[in-house]
C-alpha cells in the first residue's frame, strides 16, 4: 500500500517476532520517577480515521494544520517526556512517531498487526498495543523496534491500560466480552474477566483502586476492583428520551481529583458526567454524532469530544458543563491528544 507522508521517510522499525513473551522483571528495576515534561505547545492533535489525517488545533481551538498520515489512524499517545506522540494506523499496520515541536514524522514502526489503541509502560520504552485483527496484544520495544511480547486475547482487542506502577496491563476484548489481565513481570495473562457486552476503553481512579471499563453494547460502565480483579459494580447511562440500545459508551476519563468522570456515550450523542464516589450520573451534555474519543486539558477546564459521525470536535467548559465551541476536523475523528 502506498501512502504519501508529508515528511520524508523516517527510520523503519526493525522487527523480529518472538514467539513467547520475554520476562519483564528487568523492566521493574527501571525507575518510575516522573520524567521531565517538556513545556506544552498548547496544540491539540486529532486523528481522523477515514481521511488518514491528523488535524492540529492551536490553544484558541482554531484549526491550524492538517497532517497527512498513515491509513486509518486511531490511537494516539505521548512518549514519556511528551516531546513526541505515537499514532496507530490499522490499515498500514504501522505505528508512526511525530515530533511535537516540529510536527514532523520522525519514525515508523512497521508490521505491527492492525494497531488500534495502546498504552505506554511507565518505563517509557515498552508500548502495549492491541492488534485488532490478530486477537493479540503485543509489546513493542520502542528503542529496538522489536516486538518483545505477545499475548493471546479474545477477538478484537481494544482498550489498553497499564497501571502507573507498571505491574499490570489490562486489555479489553470487544468480541469476547472480556478484560484480560497481564502480569507485566511474569509476562503472562493471569486472568480473563468476563464483563458486559463489547468492552471498549478503560480509566483508573487516581487511587488506582478501581478500573472502569465501558461496555458499549450494554450501555454501561463496569467497575473492576484492581486488588481482587472482580467486578464490583456498574453504572448505567440513559439520557432523557433515549432507548437503551442507543446508548453506546466508549471513552472514559476520570479527573485527577477522582471526583468526576466523563463518559462518551457514542450513538446517544451525549457525554455523561459522573460522580465517581457515588457512581451516579450528574448530567448529560449534548455533543455531536457518535461521540467516542475524550481528552481533558491539563487544567481540566476544557473537555474535548471527538464526534465520529459529524466529523467535528465538541469543546465543553467543565465548570459550567456548557459547550464552548465545535470545530470541524477530518473524516471520522477518533483520538485526541492535548499538548498543554
Amino acid at each position, binding site marked *: 500500500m502506498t501512502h504519501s507522508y508529508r515528511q520524508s521517510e523516517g527510520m523503519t522499525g526493525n522487527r523480529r517476532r518472538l514467539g513467547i513473551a520475554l520476562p519483564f522483571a528487568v523492566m521493574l528495576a527501571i525507575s518510575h520517577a516522573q520524567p521531565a515534561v517538556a513545556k506544552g505547545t498548547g496544540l491539540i492533535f486529532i486523528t481522523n480515521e477515514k481521511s488518514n489525517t491528523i488535524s492540529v488545533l492551536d490553544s484558541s481551538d482554531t484549526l491550524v494544520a492538517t497532517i497527512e498520515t498513515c491509513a486509518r489512524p486511531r490511537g494516539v499517545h505521548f512518549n514519556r517526556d511528551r516531546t513526541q506522540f505515537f499514532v496507530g494506523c490499522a490499515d498500514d499496520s504501522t505505528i508512526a512517531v511525530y515530533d511535537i515541536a516540529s510536527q514532523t514524522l520522525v519514525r515508523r514502526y512497521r508490521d505491527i498487526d492492525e494497531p488500534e489503541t495502546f498504552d505506554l509502560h511507565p518505563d517509557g520504552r515498552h508500548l502495549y498495543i492491541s492488534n485488532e485483527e490478530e486477537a493479540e496484544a503485543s509489546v513493542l520495544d520502542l528503542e529496538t523496534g522489536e516486538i518483545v511480547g505477545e499475548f493471546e486475547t479474545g477477538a478484537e482487542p481494544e482498550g489498553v491500560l497499564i497501571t502507573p506502577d507498571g505491574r499490570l496491563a489490562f486489555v479489553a476484548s470487544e*468480541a469476547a466480552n472480556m478484560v484480560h489481565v497481564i502480569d507485566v513481570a511474569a509476562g503472562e495473562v493471569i486472568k*480473563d474477566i468476563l464483563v458486559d457486552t463489547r468492552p471498549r476503553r478503560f480509566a483508573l481512579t487516581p487511587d488506582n483502586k478501581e478500573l472502569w471499563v465501558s461496555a458499549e453494547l450494554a450501555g454501561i460502565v463496569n467497575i473492576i476492583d484492581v486488588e481482587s480483579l472482580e467486578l464490583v459494580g456498574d453504572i448505567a447511562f440513559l439520557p432523557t428520551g433515549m432507548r437503551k*440500545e442507543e446508548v453506546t459508551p466508549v471513552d472514559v476519563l476520570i479527573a485527577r481529583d477522582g471526583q468526576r468522570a466523563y463518559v462518551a456515550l457514542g450513538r446517544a450523542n451525549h457525554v455523561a458526567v459522573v460522580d465517581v464516589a457515588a457512581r451516579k450520573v450528574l448530567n448529560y451534555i449534548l455533543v455531536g454524532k457518535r461521540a467516542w474519543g475524550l481528552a481533558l486539558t491539563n487544567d481540566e477546564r476544557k473537555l474535548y469530544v471527538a464526534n465520529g459521525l459529524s466529523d467535528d470536535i465538541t469543546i465543553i467548559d467543565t465548570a459550567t458543563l456548557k459547550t464552548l465551541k465545535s470545530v470541524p476536523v477530518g473524516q471520522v475523528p477518533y483520538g485526541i491528544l492535548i499538548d498543554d
Partner: protein
Amino acid sequence: MTRGRRRRYLAVAMLLALVSPSLSAGTTAAETVTFAYIGRDADPAYTPTKAYTGLVLRDRKRPLDGARLGLRDSKIMGRARGLKFKLTERILAPGRDAGAAIREIAAAEGTNVFLLDLPIEEMPDTLRGLKAAPLVLFNVRHGDDTLRGANCAPTLFHTMPSDTMRMDGLAQFLRQKRWDQLLVLQGEDAEDARLVAAFRNSAKKFGLDIEEVRPFKLGNDPRERGRNNIRLLTSSADYDAVFLADAVGEFGRYVPYQTLLARPVVGTEGLIASAWHWTYERYGAPQLNQRFEKRAGYRMTAPQWAAWAAVRAAVEAILRTGKTDAASLRAYLVSDEMNLDLYKGTPGGFRPWNNQLRQPILLHTYNAVIDRAPIEGFLHQTNNLDTLGAGPLDSACRF
C-alpha cells in the same frame, strides 16, 4: 431492573455450574464442547448458476466458513471457563436421512448444538422428528417464514432473518422516503411468490400501496411482450418504485434503467434487504468482514454471518449459564439476558414466540449499505427491533 436481575441470574448460573457434572470449570484439563455443522452433498443451492455465455451470476457459498470463524472468535472466551470449543463438520450423502444422522452424531460426539445447512424441502420432515429432542438446532440458511410459523419447532433457532423481517425493513425504508406507490414484478420461481407474499404483508403493515403485481417471463417472444418487455411491463401505471422478485436473477438484472418511468428498483436488484453485507462500515462490521475474508478468501454474505452468529449465540449461552444441556441453553437464548453483539449496532436475543434472532436489517446496493432498519422513527413499545418480523400475536408458531 435488568442489571440486577442479570447479576442474580449469573450468580445462580455459577452456583449451578459448580454442581453440574457436565461442565467443570476451573479444572486444569480443558473440557471440550463440540458443535456440529450439517450440510447436504450435491446441494443444488451451491452449484454455481451459469447463465448464457457461461456467466456465473450466482455463486453461493455454504455458511460453513462463518461457523469456523465463530469458533475461532470464541477460543479465548472458553479459556476463562476452562472450555475448548470444537466444530464437527458433516456433509451428508444424498439420500441419507438428516434427522437420523443428527441423532447419531449427537450420540457419537456428545454434542447437542447443530447448525443446519439443509435444502428447504428437507427441513419440515427433519424438524418433525427432532421437535422433542434434547438439542439446540440453528437455521443458518433459510428466510422462509413457515419455518418460524406453521413448521416451527421448539428446538429450532433462527439466526437468518425471516423474509418478513427483511421485507419489513425495506418497507420502512420506502415509507420513510414516501415512495408509497409500488409496482411489483414477480418471476415464476416459488421463491419469488414467497417474497411477494412477504412484501405484501409488509406493505400493508407500513402503509404502502401496491398498485399492481405483474408476472414477468424471460424470453423474446413478441406474443408475450407484455410479460417479457420491461418497458411494457412498467408502463400504464403510476408508481414511486419498482419491487422486483426474481430469485433466479437473469431477468432482474436488466430491470434497473429499463423501466419506463425514472424510478428506483428494490427487492432482488437495486436496493436489497439482507442480514449482512461486506461493505458495512459501522459497529465493528469492518473488523468482522476483514477477519472473515482473510481466512475464507471471499466476502462474507448473510449465510456465513448467520452461522457465525449461531456459534456466538451458543458460546454466549454456555459461558453465561455455565451449563451445556439443551434445556438450559434454550432457556437462556430466549431470555432477556441474551445480549449478543451482532456487529450491526444493536445487540439481539431470540424471540420466545418463534425462536427468531432479533436483528437489524441492512439495506444495500451491490457496493454500499444505504441504511439500516429499524429505520429512524419506527418505534416499538418494548424493543425497536421488534418492528421487524412477526410479533407474538401475528406469529403462526405454536410450540
